[in-house]
């Protein structure tokens, strides 16, 4: 058979089968030598198995991917699939920036993902995003420091009172200078809002349209943090923080902090920079020791189909594969915790097992659509209370009023 005739015949066959070849544009922020091989492997695996749906991966820097995607959606010329911040999927849904995946059959796979992550992409009952990876925060403590301070290294703190009591024992001073600070709630990676939620009350209602930043729980939490703050002193805490390095000079590794709240992936950092370190990893302590749905929190990434893409069906097929089978490869090689349950259970490292057990206690706080920048008002309140002796109730009332004003302004 002559080559040309052969080509015509295969083309004819392909078109009768409806399998016209499409190329999907896929954007994500993974470009480093650590991430690149894995993403290339995932894309290659897909492309080999799907000659008619080829995926072209493009690295887009993290700080610009949202803006670039937005511009392309506005110009009606978007990529087919993007990896994007998990907290803002719902806002994009409310602004018609991404594609309704329920129409493409997404609801069928709902049960395969952790519920707290799945709902980040649900807007008005429809699904607009598929969750890819997340993390959860834990309390890490230095067992050697525990021994030195006369604490039981086999038992981490379970309550806020434990935290305070242990920290007092762990503090180490020479003269007025701290050599080691046992614990400070705003160091590490947990934040004021994290603690309020940890205490059992969200800073927003379920619809995330009404703020609740001045609840009694929030006031109590802020006063609790102020107690810590006053113990060490604002200036001491700030200059102490300025001395934190990273890598081997990470404050927890170098012994500057006895305990720290960090993401589950921090275990990998410890393994890398302090392989011999004797540490414990426990659930975040709560006021009472009881755990709830918001004991810890996490962020992460979703996969979305920007609105106006040319090949939604093919894009959805790829996206669904990417967050399931792709996530399996990703989790194995990159140590990120996948939203796809089966992929997460396939990895049996202790940190992963703790993470999957902790998912039911991990809250993923979705950005409120009418006040995505509300955090600045909370930061201001926290600063006023800690550094300017403003009453906690008053500062949080002010924040609540301001956030309500912003919502009202944005709803118009």
């Amino acid at each position, binding site marked *: 058979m002559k080559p040309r005739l052969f080509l015509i015949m295969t083309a004819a066959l392909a078109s009768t089968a409806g399998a016209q070849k499409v190329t999907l544009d896929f954007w994500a922020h993974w470009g480093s030598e650590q991430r690149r091989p894995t993403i290339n492997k995932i894309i290659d695996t897909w492309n080999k198995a799907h000659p008619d749906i080829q995926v072209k991966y493009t690295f887009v820097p993290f700080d610009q991917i949202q803006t670039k995607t937005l511009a392309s959606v506005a110009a009606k010329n978007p990529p087919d699939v993007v990896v994007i911040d998990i907290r803002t999927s719902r806002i994009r849904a409310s602004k018609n920036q991404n594609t309704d995946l329920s129409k493409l059959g997404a609801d069928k796979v709902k049960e395969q993902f952790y519920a707290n992550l799945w709902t980040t992409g649900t807007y008005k009952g429809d699904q607009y995003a598929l969750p890819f990876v997340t993390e959860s925060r834990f309390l890490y403590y230095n067992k050697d420091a525990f021994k030195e301070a006369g604490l039981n290294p086999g038992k981490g703190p379970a309550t806020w009172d434990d935290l305070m009591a242990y920290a007092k024992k762990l503090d180490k001073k020479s003269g007025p200078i701290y050599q080691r600070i046992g614990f400070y709630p705003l160091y590490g990676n947990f934040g004021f809002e994290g603690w309020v939620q940890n205490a059992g009350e969200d800073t927003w209602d379920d619809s995330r349209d009404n703020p609740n930043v001045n609840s009694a729980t929030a006031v109590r939490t802020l006063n609790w943090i102020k107690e810590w703050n006053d113990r060490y002193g604002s200036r001491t805490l700030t200059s102490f923080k300025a001395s934190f390095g990273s890598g081997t000079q990470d404050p927890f590794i170098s012994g500057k902090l006895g305990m720290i709240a960090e993401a589950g992936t921090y275990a990998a950092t410890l393994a890398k920079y302090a392989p011999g370190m004797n540490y414990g990893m426990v659930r975040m302590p709560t006021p009472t020791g009881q755990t709830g749905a918001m004991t810890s929190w996490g962020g992460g990434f979703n996969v979305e189909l920007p609105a106006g893409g040319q090949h939604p069906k093919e894009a959805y097929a790829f996206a669904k594969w990417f967050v399931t089978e792709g996530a399996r490869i990703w989790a194995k090689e990159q140590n990120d915790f996948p939203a796809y349950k089966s992929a997460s259970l396939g990895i049996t490292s202790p940190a992963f097992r703790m993470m999957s057990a902790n998912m039911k206690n991990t809250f993923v706080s979705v950005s409120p659509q009418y006040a*995505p*920048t509300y*955090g*600045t008002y909370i930061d201001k309140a926290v600063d006023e209370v800690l550094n300017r002796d403003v009453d906690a109730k008053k500062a949080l009332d002010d924040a609540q009023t301001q956030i309500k004003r912003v919502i009202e302004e944005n709803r*118009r």
Partner: protein
Amino acid sequence: MSAPPVRPRRRGLGIRQREALWGFVFVAPWLVGFLAFTVGPMLFSLYASFTNYDITSRADWVGLRNYQTLVGEDPRFWKSLGNTAYYTVFSVPLGIAVGLLIASLLNQDVPGQRVFRTVFFLPKILTGVAVLLLWLWVFNPEVGLVNNGLRAVGVPENSLPLWFQDPAWSKPALVIMSMWSAAGGFLFYLAALRGVPKDLYESAQLDGANSWRQFLTITIPMISPVIFFKVITGLTAALQYWEGALVVSEGGKGGPVDSTLFYGLYMWETAFTEFRMGKASAMAWVLLVITLVITAVQLQLSKRWVYYEGETK
């Protein structure tokens, strides 16, 4: 210089008309580019400022509401305007002074010109994220260059500024950073200084004027058009400035406590985090008006101090 080709004058056109015609020919590239690429988006943003435009789902007419909200209800608008005013007032004059100082020094007959010029241009070349980490170290309260210097001159430990961690010191830190970056601006002045006729100085020296007097009566007037250019463009840039906030605060949110919430940063947040492009456009036009008013004032003032050797009125 070879002799200019002689061309017969076109009949029917006076000198004035010919000149005007040439004028249009010369500005035509800008005019075409402006009409093709700039005027449309500019007018669109003006229109958007009267709507609730969110880029992707709506653009309904809301009249003056965006402007009213900004001026009447939004404390962060005023906060950001105040921060930007602070930054502008300090960074623009200091930046010009630094550039002029370096240019004047380089205009002296000192050895190593080529090396010095290259070094002073470095701040312009060094940009991007790498510089970000740099400044975090420089202003580190414990081990940073600045505080080490202050310690060396005897500032007690407890009065050392915490810079990026302290709302009272975050803006001064950014002004210092801006002076570093402004060093590269010396090139503008140097180019102008080189054009100042030497004989002016020589005759002034004959008249017994000292160096400082020469600087004030010859150098400054002769390069005043370029200084004026730096005043206007410096003001424009400072009023739109916001990149520094990305250095100071984690995630670039304008912290600590909104002390680096610059107008440009607030506008960016409004446009791309809140998706309120209508309001952001209103902010942009408010800024445009502010900038134009300041420029008009400067233009009036400039008549007193800017000297154009080759003006065509």
